[in-house]
């Protein structure tokens, strides 16, 4: 601040500094949030195969323990249905890890 600046100038300068601080803080928070989004992406990628491994292991164990048609159908259905969903979770995690969710589209032009 220059010597002899008026009261209005001082106020302007103070407000500008506050505004800049807020922008910097927002950018910093955004960066922090984006980093969390990306790190969690790895978790989602890993979670999907773990869930399918547990599902298949339990299913096989239960089918061996109770080898009736109802048990087999139930577990087969679970496994067949949840595998594509787990693949979807891996894709979601991959997109998150790559930063695709750092900015969400705000209009349809960004989507199509």
């Amino acid at each position, binding site marked *: 601040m220059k010597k002899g600046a008026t009261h209005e100038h001082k106020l302007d300068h103070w407000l500008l500094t506050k505004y800049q601080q807020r922008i910097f803080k927002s950018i910093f928070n955004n960066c922090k*949030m984006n980093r*969390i*989004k990306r790190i*969690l992406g790895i978790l*989602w990628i890993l*979670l999907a195969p773990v869930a399918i491994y547990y599902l298949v292991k*339990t299913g096989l164990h*239960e089918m061996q323990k109770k080898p009736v*048609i*109802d048990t087999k*159908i*139930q577990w087969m*259905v*679970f496994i067949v*249905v*949840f595998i594509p*969903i787990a693949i*979807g*979770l891996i*894709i*979601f995690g991959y*997109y*998150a890890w790559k930063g*695709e*969710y750092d900015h*969400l*589209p*705000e*209009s*349809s*032009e*960004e*989507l*199509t």
Partner: protein
Amino acid sequence: MNSSPAPERGIWKIISASSVGTLIEWYDFYIFGSLATVIASQFFPKTNPTAALLSTLATFAAGFIVRPFGALVFGRLGDLIGRKYTFLLTLVIMGGSTFAIGLVPGYERIGFAAPLLVLLLRLMQGLALGGEYGGAATYVAEHSPPHKRGYYTSWIQTTATLGLFLSLGVILIARHSLAPDRETSIQKFNEWGWRIPFWVSIILVAVSIYIRLKMKESPLFARIKSEGKISTNPLKESFGHKMNLKMVLLALFGATMGQGVVWYTGQFYAQSFIENVCHVDFEQSRTILIWSILFATPFFILFGWWSDKIGRKWIMLAGMFLAVISYRPLFNQLLNISDVTKSAELGDKKEINKKLTPTTGGQMLMVTTTKRYFENGNSQIEMKTDTVGTSATLNPQLKSSKMLGQSAYWKIVGIIFLMILYVTMVYGPIAAFLVELFPTRIRYTSMSLPYHIGNGIFGGLTPFIATLLTTIYTDNKLVGLWYPIIVAVICFIIGLVYINNKIDPNVND
């Protein structure tokens, strides 16, 4: 082409026409589930392994797993030919299938064709439901002004719960009105009266088709159609383009997955729990649900309206969070309240009745009914069925059910109400949330798929998976809750971190 929102008076016509049809579709879908035991005895005799296989498929896979496929088929149609004709078509398919289930002769008359026909019709029901909801929600949202989109679409959200309410009501009325004597009436209902709720559907559907035929196409769809901007391949656009696919995945993992498990735990697993784990009487468990639904339904509207003010995200996430932290204590309370051993028995009131009935095989059946009363107002009925007088005896069967006293009954209504309140939080704003994620040209397809994977697969399988867990880990009655809790926790974290709370003011794009 005018694509501005409908005037206030016109919007209520649109909402009621859309809601009535969606409500009827839910009614049709639920009566099959509510009458699964009766239907199984009529069409799927356990003695025939193929019929038993079809039974499992019909109740298990067809109803829920086929829904995402319906979302793809009819979503695509809705984005190609328009919302109005597509959800008119789903209504006709749903109504026709439901009515036809009520006409199919039993296994004893036409043999193997009976379960096959029922399975086919159940598949049609699942497909139609998969196409209906997205159409109705899109249609209403595309007529709504931006600041009231959550409020107006929340009326569509009430229909799923009211459809269950209607189905329970019609079934209970039919069960008790076929003969003056209660037991004869139930017997008649099990023989042929179960068909009535299916036949009632055709009247409801006819009225709804008449109303929907008078509706106009969505103004936004009509505009893009007149401008030649409709999608030529909505499936490819929705799931083949990375920008859209990532939003579909976000909608599924950050919203509908958790919403689905909260919904099906609160409304379906809770009812199955009080009936099969707490052993509360068949009719009491249903009237408990009816009261809870009745008290909770207005909250769909409240949370839909509120989401217009503060955004969709936090209301939905709050519902998931509350469900995650309170499910175990709430279900534990259900066990405690219905536990008759926690109160002293009124020994002088104990009633024992014995009844001998001849069977067709020349044996005599002894049915011993013991009714015990407890200080807290609850009572317990035990029915023991045994053969007497012959050497070839059947295994004695013991059935037990509890009648809750006034205080316990209303406490359980309160707990189920609370769980349905969470449903209203996660489900009330979700139609507006999904509509705002996708552009008009692929909206029907894009929003229907995550909705029906979340609700049909994650949600619809909740009662099955939860019950299955209790058969694996038999010493823990609450173990089934880990499935909805884990799914809701994952969805909550994804929603919290990745979803934006911003309300899209413009869905006209």
